[in-house]
C-alpha cells in the first residue's frame, strides 16, 4: 500500500491543479465578458457623454475594441500570462507599476492578520472544545457569534471610535502608507487594520476548530490512547490535534481568500494604500483594465489558497491520505 501512497497524493494534487486552471480560465472569460464585451460601447461608458469622437477612437484602439471579441480576449489573456496587465486609463501608467507597491502593502496586511489570527483561533477553538459547555466555551462562542455577525467596516469603525477618535487617541485613525515607504516602517498604522482583519477571521476558524476538536475528542482512537494510559498532553497534541486540524485548513484558506475581498472595505476605512483601495478607486473612476487585472489577481489568489488547503488537509489528515 505504501508504495501507492505518494502517487495517490500527487495524482490528487495534479487533479486539483487542473481543476484550478479550468476555474481560472472560466473566471477570465467571465471577467472579460463582463468588463469588455458588454452590449454598448465601453469607450463611451468610460469617457462619458462629453467625449469627443477623436478621444473615443483613441480609447477604442487602446482597448483593442476595433478587433473581434476573441482576438481581444486572446490579447488580454496572453498579456496577463506574460505579466503585462495593461495600462490604467486613469493614471496612464502600466498597471503592474501602479499596483506592485500596493500589492506589497496588502500582502503585508493580510499576512500579518493570518499570522496572528490562525494560532489564536486554533487555540481558542481547541480550548473551548476541551472546556465544552463551561464558562470559557460559552462566553467565547457567544462573543464570537456576535463579532462574526458584524460587517467588517463596522468592526473597523468601532475600533476607530474606541482607540483613535471619540473615546481615546492612542492610535491613528488613518493608516496611509506614503508612496515609497514600506508598511513595516509604519507599524503603528498597521495596528487597527490588522486587528479588524483578525476579528473578521477568528470567529469562523475557531468555531470550526471547536467543532472538529470535539468530534475528534469523542472518537475511539482518542479514547484508546487515553485507555493505553498515555499522558493527556500526548493524547491531545499527538492524537487529537492533527486530526482536528484537517477541516480547519479549508476554513483558513476560505477565510484568507475572503480577506482578499475584505481588504476592499478595510483599506477604504483606514485609507490604507493597497489593492483593496485600488479596486474601489478603479470602480469609481471606471478604470476597467485595472478592475479586470485586480479581479483576476484575487481569483488567482483564491484558487491557489483553495488548492493549498486541499493539499494541506490531505497531508495532515492520516485517515484521508489512505483513502485516495
Amino acid at each position, binding site marked *: 500500500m505504501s508504495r501507492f501512497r505518494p502517487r495517490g497524493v500527487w495524482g*490528487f494534487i495534479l487533479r486539483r491543479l487542473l*481543476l484550478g486552471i*479550468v*476555474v*481560472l480560465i472560466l473566471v477570465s472569460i*467571465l*471577467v472579460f465578458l*463582463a*468588463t469588455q464585451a*458588454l452590449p454598448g460601447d465601453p469607450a463611451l*461608458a468610460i469617457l462619458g457623454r462629453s467625449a469627443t469622437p477623436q478621444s473615443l477612437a483613441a480609447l477604442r484602439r487602446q482597448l483593442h475594441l476595433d478587433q473581434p471579441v476573441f482576438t481581444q480576449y486572446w490579447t488580454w489573456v496572453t498579456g496577463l500570462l506574460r505579466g503585462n496587465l495593461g495600462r490604467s486609463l486613469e493614471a496612464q501608467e502600466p498597471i503592474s507599476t501602479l499596483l506592485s507597491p500596493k500589492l506589497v502593502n496588502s500582502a503585508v496586511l493580510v499576512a500579518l492578520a493570518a499570522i496572528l489570527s490562525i494560532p489564536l483561533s486554533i487555540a481558542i477553538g481547541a480550548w473551548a472544545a476541551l472546556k465544552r459547555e463551561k464558562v470559557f466555551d460559552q462566553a467565547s462562542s*457567544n462573543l464570537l*457569534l*456576535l463579532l*462574526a*455577525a*458584524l*460587517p*467588517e*467596516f*463596522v468592526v473597523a*469603525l*468601532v475600533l*476607530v*471610535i474606541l482607540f483613535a*477618535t*471619540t473615546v481615546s487617541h492612542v492610535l491613528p485613525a488613518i493608516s496611509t502608507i506614503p508612496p515609497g515607504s514600506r508598511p513595516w516602517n509604519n507599524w503603528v498604522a498597521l495596528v487597527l487594520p490588522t486587528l479588524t482583519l483578525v476579528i473578521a477571521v477568528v470567529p469562523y476558524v475557531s468555531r*470550526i476548530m471547536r*467543532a472538529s476538536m470535539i*468530534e475528534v475528542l469523542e472518537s475511539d482512537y482518542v479514547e484508546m490512547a487515553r485507555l493505553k494510559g498515555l499522558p493527556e498532553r500526548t493524547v491531545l497534541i499527538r492524537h487529537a490535534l492533527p486530526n482536528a486540524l*484537517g*477541516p480547519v485548513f*479549508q476554513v483558513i484558506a476560505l477565510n484568507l*481568500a*475572503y480577506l*482578499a*475581498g*475584505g481588504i*476592499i*472595505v478595510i483599506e*477604504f*476605512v483606514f485609507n490604507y494604500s493597497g489593492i483593496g483601495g485600488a*479596486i*474601489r478607486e*478603479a*470602480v*469609481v473612476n*471606471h478604470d476597467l483594465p485595472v*478592475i479586470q487585472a*485586480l*479581479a483576476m489577481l*484575487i*481569483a488567482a489568489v*483564491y*484558487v491557489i489558497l*483553495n488548492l493549498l488547503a*486541499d493539499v494541506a*488537509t490531505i497531508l495532515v489528515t492520516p485517515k*484521508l491520505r489512505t483513502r*485516495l
Partner: protein
Amino acid sequence: MSQVSDWVADAEIAPPLPAVRGTSLLRRSLKLWRTRIGLVLVGFIVLLAIVGPYLAPYGPSAAVGAPNSNPSSQAVLGTDYLGQDVLSRVLYGGRSILVMAVLATALAVVVGTAIGLVAAYSRNALDDVLMRGMDVLMALPQILLALVAVAIVGPHAWVIVVAIALTTVPRIARVARGAAQPVVERDFIAASEAMGVPRWRIVAGELLPNTLGPLMVEASLRLTYSIALIAALAYLGLSTPNSANWGTMIQQNQLVLAVQPWGAVAPIIAIALLTMGTGLIGDGIARTAAGIDRARGEE
C-alpha cells in the same frame, strides 16, 4: 468540488436526515434565548425602518442647523456634516438596506435551491456542469463581483440586489445539493420514480421538504452577509449620492467622529443591532436543527 472539500462540506452542512418542516424548526428554535433576543433586535430595527419615516421630526435632507452641531432639543442626535438632522436620517435610512437585503437573499435562495436540487437529482453530467459553474462564481469574492457590476452598469439598487443574489446563489446551491444528495439515494425516491411521479414533483415534493432545515440555516446566514455587503457598498460610496442610508451616513460623518460622533455612531449601532439580530436567529435555527439531528441519531 474535490473529495476533500466534499468531505468537509458534508461534515459541516449536511446532516444525515434533515426531514424537518421549516415551520416546526422555526417554532422549536424559539425555545432558545438567542433566537428570542435576535428576533427582538431584528423586530426593533424592522419597526424602525417601517414607521421611522413617519416619526422623523424632519425630512431626510432638510437643513436644520449648523453642520456638526451637538445634540440639542432641536436635533436630539445633533446634525451631520451638512447640518441635516441625524435622528431623522437614521429613521429614514433603514428601509433601503432591509428591502435590498431581503430581496437579494430571497432571489438567491429560490435560484440556488433550484440549481442545487436539480444538480443532486440529475446524478449525471448536468450535476458536474452546474456545480463547476457554481465554483467559478465562487472564485470571486462577493463584494468584488458587486463592485464590478456597479462599475459597469452603475450604482442602481437593482444592480446591487442582482449582484449580491448572483454571488449568493452558488453558496445556497452547494448546501441544497449537499443536503439533497443523501435523500436522492433513498428508497422512497426510487419508489416515486417507479410509480411514474413526474421528475419536477419529486424535486419539489420529496427533495425540497427534506432539505429545508439546512437551507434555512444557510439562508439566515446569507441574509446577515447580504445586509453587511449592501451596507458596505453604500459605505464605499457606491449607492445613490446623499441618500439617507446608514452606510452612506457612516462614510459621510466618519471624518468628524472626533467632533460630532453621533452622525456615524447612530447608524453604526443600527447596522450592528440588525446584523447581530439576524446572526443570533441564524444560530438559534442552526442549533435547533443540529439538536434535532442529534436526537434522531440516538433514536
